[in-house]
């Protein structure tokens, strides 16, 4: 006989209850531990600091900080031993100091700056079989870096930046702040209480570009002339030494109150005639001027991998003729960093094509490549015809600076002096040779022509490089 009994009410519910408890337990564990140890260290600085602090403390007795080398394979920072930090030989400990920066961490915060700070995940926290961090290869040339630091900056506050015209690689970025930072002695950073002493000159400071901006104004005017088929008359101007924009009571004058009479674009750039460019800027128009500045990426953040983000400001104020005139010859509220000015020179040198700047070429862990730079264009800023015109007038300007073709080869250049807050004058010279672009910047100077001897030395050094 078949007796059917339904046993569906046996302790299945209790088993299901334990299944649910197991699910909650496992998912809870996954959520908490993945959050604490994987997700939050990406999102929250305090968790990142804890993670790196724990790692640093655990490995400091055996880990060796990875070498940082220049483009020729010379060690810039290295020679580390287990338990002791890597260091730089003289004079790289000063010439590279602001570039290399520092890294330290405790349980609550990370202190990091420059390449060492930004490359820590590779050079400190990724070790090869011999417990040595990954090797970082820079694009810099140590000879050039030392030369620029010792001979051009020579202890003065400022920076020297050299870029490769074709690739945008940074061959030199040496800085001098108001303190002598020694990368082997982080405490040397604390020897000054002057505001902003602890920042790298060349990428940090944003000041008005001064007369270097006249290159942008000239490019905008050339484009207008090209677009609207305007003749030479558009560029003709009779300089009286003073210019007052419509509706503005402020009188713009030329340097040393010079008067140039009837002049054109080339002569105006050669002599950096403020009145001419104030007038040309207003006639070109705020929109075209703004478009050209934007084409050179002024007003846009530019990231340099592992180094910094270069910031700039494009500001026409109220947009009145007076404000446009100020911007047109490089004053007003527009702010650009020296590295960005070097990039503008590089773009003109490279037929109008601005390349993304980079300083870390590659990172390797033994034979394993961990990172390789990617050369790419940021923007085609100007057309070939405008670029040719700019090169022509910048070349004659450089010749006027004493850099004739016979002794210096083909050089284009433009100086600039910016009046900054606190009666400080920031001077620049930007330029380029066939292969390299540069910007020399003096943060506390009086006149840009003081930079010419340094620029001449730099060009001769660049010409001597292979």
């Amino acid at each position: 006989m078949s007796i059917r009994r339904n046993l569906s009410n046996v302790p299945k519910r209790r088993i299901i209850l334990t299944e649910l408890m197991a699910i909650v337990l496992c998912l809870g564990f996954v959520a908490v531990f993945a959050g604490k140890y994987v997700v939050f260290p990406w999102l929250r600085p305090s968790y990142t600091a804890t993670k790196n602090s724990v790692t640093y403390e655990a490995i400091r007795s055996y880990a060796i900080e990875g070498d940082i080398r220049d483009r020729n394979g010379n060690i810039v920072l290295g020679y580390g031993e287990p338990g002791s930090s890597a260091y730089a030989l003289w004079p790289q400990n000063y010439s590279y100091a602001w570039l290399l920066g520092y890294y330290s961490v405790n349980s609550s915060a990370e202190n990091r700056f420059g390449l060492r700070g930004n490359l820590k995940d590779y050079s400190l926290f990724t070790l090869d079989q011999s417990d040595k961090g990954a090797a970082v290869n820079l694009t810099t040339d140590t000879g050039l870096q030392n030369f620029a630091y010792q001979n051009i900056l020579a202890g003065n506050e400022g920076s020297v930046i050299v870029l490769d015209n074709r690739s945008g690689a940074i061959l030199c970025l040496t800085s001098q702040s108001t303190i002598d930072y020694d990368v082997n002695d982080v405490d040397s950073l604390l020897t000054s209480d002057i505001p902003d002493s602890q920042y790298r000159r060349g990428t940090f400071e944003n000041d008005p570009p001064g007369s270097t901006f006249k290159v942008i104004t000239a490019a905008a005017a050339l484009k207008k002339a090209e677009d609207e088929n305007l003749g030479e008359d558009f560029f003709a101007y009779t300089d009286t030494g003073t210019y007052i924009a419509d509706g503005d009571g402020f009188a713009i004058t030329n340097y040393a109150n010079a008067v140039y009479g009837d002049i054109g674009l080339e002569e105006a750039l050669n002599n950096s005639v403020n009145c001419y460019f104030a007038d040309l800027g207003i006639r070109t128009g705020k929109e075209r001027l703004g478009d050209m500045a934007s084409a050179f990426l002024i007003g846009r953040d530019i990231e340099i991998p592992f180094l910094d983000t270069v910031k700039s400001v494009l500001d026409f104020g109220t947009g009145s003729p007076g404000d446009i005139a100020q911007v047109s010859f490089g004053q007003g509220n527009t702010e650009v960093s020296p590295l960005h000015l070097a990039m503008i020179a590089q773009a003109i040198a490279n037929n109008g094509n601005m390349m993304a700047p980079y300083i870390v070429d590659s990172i390797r862990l033994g034979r394993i490549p961990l990172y390789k730079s990617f050369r790419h264009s940021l923007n085609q800023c100007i057309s070939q015809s405008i670029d040719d015109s700019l090169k022509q007038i910048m070349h004659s300007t450089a010749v006027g600076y004493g850099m004739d073709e016979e002794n210096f080869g083909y050089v284009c250049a433009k100086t600039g002096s910016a009046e900054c807050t606190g009666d400080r004058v920031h001077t620049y010279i930007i330029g380029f040779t066939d292969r390299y672009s540069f910007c020399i910047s003096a943060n506390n100077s009086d006149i840009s022509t003081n930079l010419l001897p340094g620029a001449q030395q730099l060009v001769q050094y660049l010409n001597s490089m292979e």
Partner: protein
Amino acid sequence: MFRHRERDPRSTSARYIALPILFIFTMGVFVLIRSGAAAMNYLYAMVPLLLATALTGTYAYNHDADMKMFSAFAILASAGVALQLTLDQTFPTMTVFSGLKYAIAFVIAIVFIAFYQVLHIILNKSFTIWLMMAASAAVYTVLYFKGMDPNGNGTLAWLRVGPYTLQLTDFTKISAVLFYSALFSSKSSRSEGSILWISSLFFLLNLAGSLLIRELGSFFILYFLHLSILFIFMPRGLHKRIYLLVLFFITFGAAVTCFMLYKVMAPMAAEGTLSGIALTLWPIVKKVYLRFSVTANIYLDPYGAGYQLMQGRKALWMAGMFGNRVHFNAIPVAESDMAFVALITTFGFVLALYLLLQFLRIMLRGSALSRRLVDRSLQDGVVAYGFTILLFGQAMLVILGSCNVIPFAGLPIPFLSRGFTYQTIVFCFAGLLLHLSENSTEETEGGEYDVDQTESLERPETADYPD
């Protein structure tokens, strides 16, 4: 007769053979990234791993076994082999992983499963509960007189047989599951009171034995098994409810008592004036106190009881998604007690959490199997649930303990830790679960049966399952 069953496409799909095979190859990449030498050893190990996975997978598939469960077992086993081979090259381990022992453990498990039919018959005999009790008592007695401690942890859980050491306490887990299975046997008709008395006797036997050989870790898991089996398989009743509550409060009270005793005995221990029973109790009191207090505050004893957990915590911070990149290997007993943390720091959180979900899958599939078997044979249901809880429960105790969420028990984690005895036991559990899942698809859940043709499926008259 059972109704005709159709193959459940979700649980019996052949893709659950392909998945672990793919996983074995993937683990090769993980191992290669950590160590070339380990990758070479893993390459050799892959041949038997792939063969064993393919053959047992095919066997399980052909016998309508639970393929999801098989997949979880195979994935965890291959991850364990990969981990152990990598640890040998990257960590300062006390022993070397033996592929031969691993294979022997696998073969012993096959033999055990082959003989399960005999055990199954014995489970229906009324003397079996006493037999299992005697087996456990024998294990503790042998260990008390002949036990040794190869790791210097102060326990007597090991027995040396020639050149080999066996952790005999692992066998008490098998006898425990078989004991509870026999206790709830369909052939036995026991009242609620007798079940509680007999199981309590067995429970106290294990407690006394564990205290004698100073091996509380294994007792931890037996305690967990005792509670869960009684909670689930005993019919609802007042006695059961009171018993479980009392047991809970006794446990809580024991922990509190240990804390109080520690405060009293610590100065005497420092002066060396402990004697008699106090001297016997002191190692246990101290161990319990340190386990709990270190869990609450890991910095309490950073170079003593908390050292292993401190190093484990460092490893967790460094691990990241794919393992630490700084060769951190200062984790004591990484190959066994701290295997899960070693896994995280070696291969990263992604893999570790995936494997945790495989443990969860074992729990869910094992529980589902138990639910199905209860309809046919209560003792098989208890066996399935018991082995499932021993695998999942121990895995969670180790995972949570080594991650300092609960007191650290110092147990091996199934599949991932090394140790011949425990690997053998784990393979026996896993194999038996797969064997029980054969021809037991989800369609029979809550089903009906013909009593006259499945006599053994009758349940005790006294049982009452009102829910």
